[in-house]
C-alpha cells in the first residue's frame, strides 16, 4: 500500500506551503492575495492531516474527516472574507490593507 513516496516528502511540501502562506500573509498588501495566502496555510495543514493519517494510522479515518471539515470551513471563511473585502472596497475604494488602518490609537 505504501507507494514510493516517503512521508518526509509530504511534510516538506506542507512546510513549504505553510511558510509560503505565512510569507504571503505578512508581505502582500492586497486583501485578496492575503486571503489566498490563508487558503495556502489551510491546505498545507490538510496535506499534513492526510499524510499522517495515511502513513501512521491507515485503518482509521479521522484525518480524512478533519481535512474535509477544514475544506468546508475554508469555503465559508472565503465567502465571509470576500463579503468583508467588498464592503471595505465600498467604504475605502481600495483593498490595500495598509490604507485600511482606522482602528488604531
Amino acid at each position, binding site marked *: 500500500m505504501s507507494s514510493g513516496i516517503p512521508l518526509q516528502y509530504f511534510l516538506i511540501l506542507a512546510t513549504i506551503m505553510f511558510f509560503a502562506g505565512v510569507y504571503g500573509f*505578512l508581505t502582500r498588501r492586497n486583501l485578496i492575495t492575503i486571503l489566498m495566502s490563508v487558503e495556502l496555510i489551510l491546505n498545507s495543514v490538510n496535506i499534513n492531516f492526510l499524510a499522517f493519517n495515511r502513513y501512521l494510522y491507515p485503518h482509521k479515518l479521522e484525518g480524512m474527516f478533519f481535512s474535509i471539515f477544514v475544506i468546508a470551513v475554508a469555503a465559508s471563511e472565503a465567502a465571509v472574507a470576500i463579503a468583508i473585502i467588498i464592503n471595505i472596497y465600498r467604504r475605502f475604494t481600495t483593498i490595500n*490593507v495598509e490604507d485600511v*488602518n*482606522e*482602528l488604531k490609537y
Partner: protein
Amino acid sequence: MINFNYTIWILLLPFLMFLFLGLAGHKYLPKLSGILGTCGLAIITVLSYITAYKYFFTSEKVDGAYQKIIAFNFTWLQFTDKLHIDIGGLLDPISVMMLVVITTVSFMVHIYSLGYMKGEKGFERFFSFLSLFSFSMLGLVLATNIFQMYIFWELVGVSSFLLIGFYYQKPSAVRASKKAFIVTRFADLGFLIGILILSFNTRTFDFISLTNPAGTAIAQGTGIGFLGLSIMTWSMIFVFMGGVGKSAMFPFHIWLPDAMEGPTPVSALIHAATMVVAGVYLVARMFPIYAIAAPVALNVVAYVGAFSSLFAAVIACTQTDIKRVLAYSTMSQIGYMMLALGVAGYGGHEGLGYIASMFHLFTHAMFKALLFLGAGAIIHAVHSNYMTDMGGLRRYLPITHITFLIACLTIAGIPPLSGFFSKDEILAAAFHSNKLLFAVEYAVAGLTAFYMFRLYFSIFWGKETNYHHEPHEAPATMTIPLIILAIGSVVAGFIPFNKLVTSDGKILESEIEMMIAIPSVLIGLLGIGIAYIMYKKESAIPDKLASIFKYGYKWAYNKFYIDELYLFVTKKIIFRYISEPVAWFDRHVIDATMNGIASVTQNVSFRIRGFQSGQLQKYAFVFITGAIMLAILFIYLWK
C-alpha cells in the same frame, strides 16, 4: 376626642400651591397666580382658625391643662426599629397660636403683595416662593419631633434666601441673600450638633417624650459633665445657637438688616413676623428641658436676649433707612421675647415669662407686620428707603399715616394697645427674677418709643419735602391689610393669653401690676416726648447731639462695626492663616501628586501608542513571531 386629621391640609395646600405656581404659573396664568396663591392661603387661614377654635374651646382638658395632640403622623425614614424619623402634626397651645399668627400675617401679606408686586417681573415666582415659605413655616411649627423641625427649619432658610434674592439682578440683593443663608446656616450647624447630642443622650427625637417634665428623657445626661456643665446643658446651648441664628440675636444678627434688600412684603412676613421668631418658638418648644434640666442654658437665653435688645435699640436710633430701623427694632423685640423665656420657669407663677414671651410674639407679629407693610406703602409712594427723603407725608398718605401711628403707639407700649399688655408682662416677669435684666429692658422700652417716633415724625411730619411727583395713597389691596392688621394690633392685647398659652397648659391667674405698668408707660411717653421735640419740626437738636456724642454716634451709626469685625476675622485671619495654607497644600501637594501620576501615565502611553498602529499585518507579524517563539520554547527548552 376631636378629629384633627384635616390639619394635614394646612401643610399640603401651600406645598401643592408652590408646585403648581412654580411649575405651571409662568406658562399658563401669570396674571392669575397671585389671586390663586391668595385664595390658597385664605383656605388654610380659615382651617387654622377652625383648628384654634376647636383646640382652645372644645378639646378636652386633663387636670385643667391643655393636652398635646398628635393630629397626624407617619414614619418617613425607618432606619431601625427604634431609630426612625417621622413627619407629623403636633397641636399644643403654642403651635396652634403660631398657626394663627403665620396664616393671618401670610394672608395679609399675600393680599398686600397683589398690589405691591403688581407688574413686577416674576410675579408668579414671588407667589410660589411665598407659598413655599408658608408651607415650611407651618411644617416647622407643627413638627412632632426635633428632626422634622430641623428639616423645615432649613426649608424656611431656603425660602428666605430665595425671597431676599428675589431681585436677583441686583448685586446687593444677591449679596444679602448669600449672607443671610451662610450666617444662618453656620448657626444651624450648632443646632444640628445640639440635636445629635440631645438625641444621643435621650434616645428620642419626639417632642412629647422629650418635653414631658415627668418623663425619663428629661433626666438623661444631667450627671455627665463637660467643662463644668452637664451634657444636657451643652446640647441645649447648641440648640439655642440655631435659634440665635434664625432669630438674628447677637452675634448672628448681621444678616437681618441686609435681608431688607428683599421686597417689602417679604420683610414683613419673614423678617418681622414669622421666620425670625422661629428661634423663640424653638426655645418655647423645648422649654421644659431648658427650665428643668438646663437652667444655665436658660440663663444664656436670657442674657443673649437682653443684650441683643439693647444693642439693636441703640443702633436703631441712628439709622436712616426706614426698613433698617424696623429690622433693628425687630431684633430688639425678639430680644425681649428671648429674655422673657430666659427668666421664666416651668409651671405655676414662674411661668409668667413664658406666657409673656408668647403673648409678645403674637402682638409683635401683628404690629411689626403692620409697620413693614406701612413702610412698604411709603416706599411705594416716595420711591426711596431713606427718611431724609421724606417728610410731611401725612397729607398724602392718610390711611398709611393712621395705621403707622397705631403701630408706633403699640410698639411704644401705650395702653390700651396690645404692645402695652405683652411688654408689661415681660417687664413684670423680668422684675420678679432678675433686677439687672429688668433695668436693661426698662431702658430699651424708652429707646424703642424714641426711635419709633423718630421714624414716625421724620416721615409724616418734619420738614416739607418737595417731591418730584405727588405721592399718592396706595391701592385698596395694600391699605385693606394695613387696616386689618391695625385692628389686630389694637385688640390683640385683650386675648387672655394666661388662660390659653402657658408653660404647662394650665391657667395662670395674673393681673397688670401697676407698680410696673405705670413707669413703663411713663418711659414710653418720655421717649415719644423727646422724639417730638427733636423731630416734629425740623430742628438742629439731632445734629447737635450727634456732634456731642461724636464717637458714640459714629459707632452706633456703623452698627458697632460688627460687620467689619466679622470681615476682619474671616478675611484677615481665617482666610489668610488657615484657608490659604490649606489651599496651598491642596494645590501643591495633593493636586501635584495626582497631576504627576496623570502626566507620567500620559507620557508613557504617548510613547507606546505606536504599537496600536491599525496595520493588520504588523499585528499578524507579532502574533506569528510569538507563536514561533513559543513553539521553539516548548520544543527545545521545555524538557
